[in-house]
């Protein structure tokens, strides 16, 4: 058999020499969709996807078991309190894990594992690769978030019946998606900064699990400055939308939270929903542009 002269037993005409010249170029947006599909397939059939789902199941199981066993009255007083705690704190952890697992090595891994040499030999723009991989990581992460939401709604339905399906919950779900967009933007930026997956993954995990929260507390408590520029400040709107702990009017900037029994209320500075969405979208846009800028200039040395 000779290349270019192969014949198909079904009678499909064989490729003739030089067919690559006559074949039209695929539009970049179609290449993005195709790349997303292949990358997503790679994620869904990988061990990391099983690991992510197992993590969500473990987080969901622990929360379900704790609530089911202790049945804390403030927690189960109404569906808002239930969601604010269960969903508000749980989903951010799920999103951080998903971002680290699906996005941490997305770009850095192309350099470290040398898979980039396979992709970059193709007639694709670098932006196509970046966006395709981002979309795949987003969809894979969203699958984990939906799984967690399913576990939560099952719990909610058990405790509150039909009242579990509130508009606030779906609003909070939408906010979680905006947070996922922003977090993945940041993760991809870190992934573009390093040619080693471990650095990108570690920095993302440390920053989002501890670093930003610590920085936020330090800035607020020591400098008495509202840390509006930190993503973890904005993500409080995911639980804050239920407005269960704030004694002030909903949507206000400064919130009076009930303190310990016998003590005066504590003043907490929260982002309003609009501010939270704005900050998260700003993170998404800025990190996406910076990450893409870095990837466009990164060399496969």
């Amino acid at each position, binding site marked *: *058999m*000779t*290349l*270019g*002269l*192969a*014949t*198909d037993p*079904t009678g*499909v*005409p*064989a*490729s*003739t*020499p*030089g*067919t*690559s*010249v006559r*074949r*039209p*170029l*695929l539009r*970049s947006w179609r*290449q993005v969709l*195709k*790349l997303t599909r*292949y990358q997503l*397939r*790679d994620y869904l*059939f*990988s061990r990391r996807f099983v690991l992510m789902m197992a993590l969500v199941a473990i987080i969901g199981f622990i929360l379900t078991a704790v609530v089911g066993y202790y049945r804390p009255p403030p927690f189960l007083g109404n569906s808002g309190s239930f969601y604010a705690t269960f969903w508000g704190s749980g989903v951010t952890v799920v999103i951080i894990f998903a971002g680290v697992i699906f996005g941490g090595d997305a770009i850095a891994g192309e350099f470290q*594992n*040398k*898979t*980039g*040499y*396979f992709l*970059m*030999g*193709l*007639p*694709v*723009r*670098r932006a196509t690769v970046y966006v395709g991989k981002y979309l795949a990581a987003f969809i894979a992460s969203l699958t984990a978030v939906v799984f967690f939401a399913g576990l939560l709604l099952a719990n909610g339905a058990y405790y509150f019946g039909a009242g579990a399906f509130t508009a606030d919950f779906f609003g909070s779900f939408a906010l979680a998606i905006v947070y996922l967009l922003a977090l993945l933007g940041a993760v991809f930026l870190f992934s573009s900064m390093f040619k080693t997956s471990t650095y990108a993954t570690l920095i993302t995990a440390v920053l989002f699990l501890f670093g930003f929260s610590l920085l936020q507390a330090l800035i607020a408590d020591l400098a008495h400055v509202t840390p509006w520029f930190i993503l973890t400040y904005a993500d409080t709107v995911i639980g804050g939308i239920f407005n269960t702990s704030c004694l002030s009017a909903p949507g206000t900037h400064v919130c009076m939270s009930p303190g310990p029994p016998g003590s005066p209320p504590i003043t907490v500075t929260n982002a309003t929903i609009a501010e939270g969405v704005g900050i998260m979208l700003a993170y998404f846009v800025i990190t996406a542009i910076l990450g893409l800028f870095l990837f466009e*200039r990164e*060399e*496969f*040395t």
Partner: protein
Amino acid sequence: MATNSPSIEVRGLTKTFGKFTALDHLDLKLEGGKCVGFLGPNGAGKTTTLKMLTDMIFPTAGECFVNGISVQKERKRALHVAGVLIESPEIYPSLTPTQALEMVADMRNMSHAERAVRIPAVLAEVKMSEWADEKVGKFSKGMKQRINIAAALVHDPEILMLDEPATGLDPRGMAEVRTIVRELKKQDRLIFMSSHILAEVTDVCDEVALINHGKLLFYDTLENVTSKFSHGQVSFDASFARPMTEAAMQVQLASTAGVQKIEQLDPRRFRIYYTGDLAGQAALLRQLSALEFDLVSFQESKSALEEVYLSQIDRGD
């Protein structure tokens, strides 16, 4: 501007890494259906050149063109007609060879009918049909390299840029690569191939470009290169069935024109350095055959290209 026959061109291509100049104003134009061997010692700038030709790294100065299209300005259009194999890439381990080639074909806008023909054909060509549906993660380096070669060929490219394609392959695999390149030459493809294996280059390439320290030493046809730089001098290894001394051999060939030097390699083998044309070489062979020590073999001790390569690289260093 796009050209009709396949072409690769680099103009004033320069690449520096800090203070180190990996490539220094390289100018090279390859045109038409042929195989061009790209030679040079480690660190000479071969892979650097190929990476800039595929936009994997960026020139400090200069520009690369594929079919007249700037790689740096229009990477997508420039690489559309090219098959590329640089640095033995890794393939996503969860993919099978068929899936990996489907991805390549899909991104290159090949129709389902084309894919149905080409993917099994190239897998057969690189002898990987029986592994078509196994996950790549389990494969050896050589098997992965076969899939990489298949990926470079699947879209029936007009131009091939191969960076040491025989890397990781066993002798049978290397021979298969040579067969593939020969077939592609027959189909008027332009193949630009870096290699350390001079026998491979001699076997399949029509032209050679030699670089050292980032500078082009020469680019010409294989025939011109060997005749220009070897000055007609070649060396032969002659083996005999019976032992003889170097002095005896010196006496036997004392009056033979063109014999420059004789070295005894072992009691039955001699290296003869000779300057002359083919007729003179034939006369030398006849003379050795007539000796009473029974000549059993007579062959070039180094390929002409190897002689040229070593002399030019040594001179440059």
